[in-house]
């Protein structure tokens, strides 16, 4: 049971930490709030990866790459994610090339690759989403 659950989910501490980064300092998160997000995000990974896998299958390729993930996001309607992730991939590849060039130049195997900057998509996506305001959801109290 424990092993199955561990394999099935992402670590709740990491999920919680990411949630906290977007919340005001005084906010708290209930245990069930963390668990719902944990389940939700696990499913999101499967959903996007499944779409990318179909594309690879049709093209007779075995390796899912970053472009496939971007394509899957766009295909599933996550256009704002696809755009931002596309920019991320571009910078990622630049950073990789710079690392290679730097290593060649100095022959130093200990150079650390600088991580690409965070996306800060939430702000952009929120603004776009709020422009065509979503219809009020049916909510039973």
């Amino acid at each position: 049971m424990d092993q199955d659950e561990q394999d099935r989910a992402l670590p709740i501490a990491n999920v919680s930490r990411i949630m906290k980064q977007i919340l005001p300092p005084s906010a708290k998160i209930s245990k069930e709030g963390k668990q719902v997000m944990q389940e939700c995000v696990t499913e999101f990974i499967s959903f996007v990866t499944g779409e990318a896998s179909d594309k690879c299958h049709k093209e007779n390729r075995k390796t899912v790459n970053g472009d496939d993930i971007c394509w899957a996001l766009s295909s599933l309607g996550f256009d704002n994610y696809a755009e931002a992730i596309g920019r991320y991939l571009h910078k990622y590849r630049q950073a990789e090339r710079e690392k290679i060039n730097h290593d060649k130049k100095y022959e130093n195997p200990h150079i650390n690759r600088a991580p690409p900057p965070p996306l800060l998509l939430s702000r952009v996506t929120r603004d776009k989403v709020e422009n065509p305001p979503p219809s009020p959801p049916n909510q039973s109290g």
Partner: protein
Amino acid sequence: MEDIGGSSSNDNNNNGGIIKEQDRLLPIANVGRLMKRILPQNAKISKEAKETMQECVSEFISFVTSEASEKCRKERRKTVNGDDICWALATLGFDNYAEPMRRYLHRYREVEVDHNKVNLQEKGNSPEEKDDELFKLSNRGVGL
């Protein structure tokens, strides 16, 4: 020199600088494992695909949590709970996620109650229903 995204705001950063990667993202091993579970047996995943998914999924958490937080702020509550997450999903258009998550919450609360009872009797409890829920969700092919 670091290029910090389009926005110059540092509100998201706890220490005014870039958050360490290990704190900003979910572990790549776990993300990779989840991706593998949905792929055919002979498929492989490039490192950049895993890192792309890491970024994407962390952003998704922030996006949904931000919406839930706004609701809590308006209602002057300090604790984000499961219902707030479900509400945020529906508000943002993730209706197919919101419905199963509400059912998950319902069963979660049942299991919590059972678990508290069972604790007194020192017995184990099966999470099969949760698996069923996710299984149905995956098979239905969630579409937006």
